[in-house]
């Protein structure tokens, strides 16, 4: 069977996986994991932008400026940033409702994203979509979907279109451990393999679907093997190590682009915050969260490497933080002062 060995050590049946990960992540002996200074700095800044953006979003929610559901990506930043370091321009991205990080990673404007969160006219969906529903044709970001699992079939359809148009593009389809149990995921897997569609399925295994741990929801917790009966190769990846993500992403994307069909990457990661803002998170211990933050934080890992290797000074990294905070504050200010959509917008965009 074409399933490669679970190289990225964390196994799903262990505790919150990165704990089981060797310090340096995947096969560092080969040197394949080493990042250049530029890559380290890039990963650091981009992950920090997501972190600060999400912290700000949480704060604006607390102030009543953001309503409804708001699902933060804090803790999972390495997944989307590592994957975006492996794509080519024009490759597509689609995900669920935990989507702010994906949009920033696709280089969408933080102002437009934040203004959508506050429901203002300058938001990516003119304020009509909200936190869970944003899109950008320009950046090939296809949303932003609220129904768990739906994006998997849609993303497979994007790959279908790529194949149909023979445009050489690959679609990246992100979904959660909880979503990985939905039926349409497997219907999609079958078609993707049957038709050799250029799609990479990125399962963001953050250990919980709302309040239910993977162990309580999945009969086989090794989600990388979910394509086994369709003969789709899969790997588990230390999703807290941006270098491991990028390396695995590059392999998977190359496989898909070469016409060999779909590929599954199980990113073993962790969500620090509650499922959404109103989740008291009684289903896990504070210790579990704290430990993960202290020993596996994706941003801290890069930071430590940069400092240790003398590639950046504390002051330089502080300056990056300041720059990122300024961007986020500007986005928040825009999102606070931008007017609501014009009432006439109620009736637009229903048909065209």
């Amino acid at each position: 069977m074409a399933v490669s060995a679970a190289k990225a050590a964390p196994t799903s049946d262990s505790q919150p996986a990165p704990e089981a990960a060797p310090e340096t992540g995947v096969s560092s002996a080969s040197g394949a994991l080493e990042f250049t200074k530029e890559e380290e700095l890039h990963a650091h800044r981009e992950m920090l932008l997501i972190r600060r953006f999400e912290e700000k979003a949480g704060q604006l929610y607390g102030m009543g400026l953001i309503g409804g559901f708001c699902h933060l990506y804090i803790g999972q930043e390495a997944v989307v940033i590592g994957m975006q370091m492996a794509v080519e321009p024009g490759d597509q991205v689609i995900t669920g409702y935990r989507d702010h990080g994906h949009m920033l990673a696709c280089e969408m404007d933080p102002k437009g994203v934040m203004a959508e969160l506050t429901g203002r006219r300058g938001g990516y969906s003119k304020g009509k979509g909200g936190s869970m529903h944003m899109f950008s044709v320009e950046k090939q970001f296809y949303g932003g979907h609220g129904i768990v699992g739906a994006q998997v079939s849609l993303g497979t359809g994007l790959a279908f279109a790529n194949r149909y148009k023979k445009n050489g593009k690959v679609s990246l389809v992100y979904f959660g451990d909880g979503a990985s149990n939905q039926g349409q995921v497997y219907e999609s897997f079958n078609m993707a393999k049957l038709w050799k569609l250029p799609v990479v399925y990125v399962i963001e295994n953050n250990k919980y679907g709302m309040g239910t741990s993977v162990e309580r929801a999945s009969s086989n917790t090794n989600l990388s093997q979910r394509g086994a009966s369709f003969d789709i190769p899969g790997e588990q990846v230390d999703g807290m190590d941006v270098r491991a993500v990028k390396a695995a992403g590059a392999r998977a994307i190359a496989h898909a682009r070469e016409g060999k069909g779909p590929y599954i990457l199980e990113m073993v990661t962790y969500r620090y915050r509650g499922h959404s803002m109103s989740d008291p998170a009684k289903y896990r211990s504070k210790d579990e969260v704290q430990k993960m933050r202290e020993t596996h934080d994706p941003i801290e890992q890069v930071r430590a490497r940069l400092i240790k290797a003398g590639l950046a000074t504390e002051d330089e990294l502080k300056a990056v933080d300041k720059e990122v905070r300024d961007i986020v504050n500007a986005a928040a200010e825009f999102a606070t002062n931008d007017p609501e959509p014009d009432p006439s917008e109620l009736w637009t965009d229903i048909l065209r």
Partner: protein
Amino acid sequence: MPIEVLMPALSPTMEAGKLAKWLKKEGDAVKSGDVIAEIETDKATMEVEAVDEGVLGKILIADGSEDVKVNTPIALILADGEDESALKNGASTPAGDAQPKPDAAPAAGEPKTGGEAAAKRADEGAAKDASGGKQPTGDAKATGSAAANPPAPEVLPEPDVPEGTEMVMTTVRDALRDAMLEEMRADERVFLMGEEVAEYQGAYKVSQGLLEEFGAERVIDTPITEHGFAGVGVGAALAGLKPIVEFMTFNFAMQAIDQIINSAAKTLYMSGGQMGCSIVFRGANGAAARVGAQHSQDYAAWYSNVPGLTVLAPYTAADAKGLLKAAIRDNNTVIFLENEILYGQQFPVPKLDDYVVPIGKAKIARPGKDVTIVAWSIGMTYALKAAEELAKDGVDAEVIDLRTIRPMDTDTIIESVKKTGRLVTVEEGWAQSGVGAEISARVMERAFDWLDAPVTRVSGKDVPMPYAANLEKLALPSVAEVVEAAKAVCYRT
């Protein structure tokens, strides 16, 4: 300048909470992500994380303070290089300029508490209040205060409630739980299954305590696989069990609707009466607040279309309890439509050992002679408020709470229309092929000669639900629209 840490809203329904405990003390260093305090709301204990870095300069609200309004400053953080002298010079807010401005922060004045949300929505509609939001702290009420409840409707006791029965104020949430609890105690075949129903106690806390009493055999957490577990439920029902299948919301039942209609609703007929499906599909239906197009749909009309289904949509806690008990006992497939905004509202529930409300009977919630208003579920909040407004203008409205969408109690509506000669229907769902359209057709068929004006429908606007606060308000029906429609059919302005 020191940075203010504000009391955060930890859920869309929170307006105030208790500052339970400080986990950092003055002088401690804090960095973003540190948990600095614990807050208690009516539902849960939650953590407050620091967003800004520095030193906790001053704690403004002490441990154990109750009823701290959202957005009240609770502490000051000294930024790098600042010392305590900075505390004297006031504080900047964390968002810099990004403080909500009165005219730019409609979200702040949006419905917050469950109970209040509907009432507020209704208020705003009535007043045609076009002014923007208010400062979040402005009129915040204590969470869970009685003020969060709508004016109790004038409850006409059900015929079978004995005179002098004690009435207990109960939330819709608890009434639903009590119904399941009582029926599970009475019948071992009844079990509950769905996402987060057991260990989490229900995503909306409706199944609170059931796992403790009945154990994991009968209160079952499912994976997120609606189509699959709906089918499993139907299969179990065909085999003689009596499942209650909870959908976290009915939006997700669209994943499962094939099993509900093709397998549950039709099998009795297809098997020539051999095999029926006694099952309840229940969960929140319709719009909540600001959750966008994919999470805000009303499915009453959809299920109402299907022979073989029974469709219930209660408004009061008493009806929620009595009808859910009836639904669980029923031999057929029952779609039980709840409403998230109503979950937290309190109503009097008769204290009886076995309070069951008959399926298929509408209720006259407010007698009147000038115009009939038919509503159900949250639509009743608009209808009852409108009736009060109309009364001030001398229009005496009769409000019918339909309660059962299918089979529809047409007789009660017809009888009322024969008295008033005028009819307005109210629903949050879309007008086309809606429940109001069905009522209108029946009244036209059976009471055409009694109508003094065309039947008028007040409904959700014919658009997907927008997220923006102002647009969402416009998309939903309002009290003002009901008042206007009622006056129009009475030829009054």
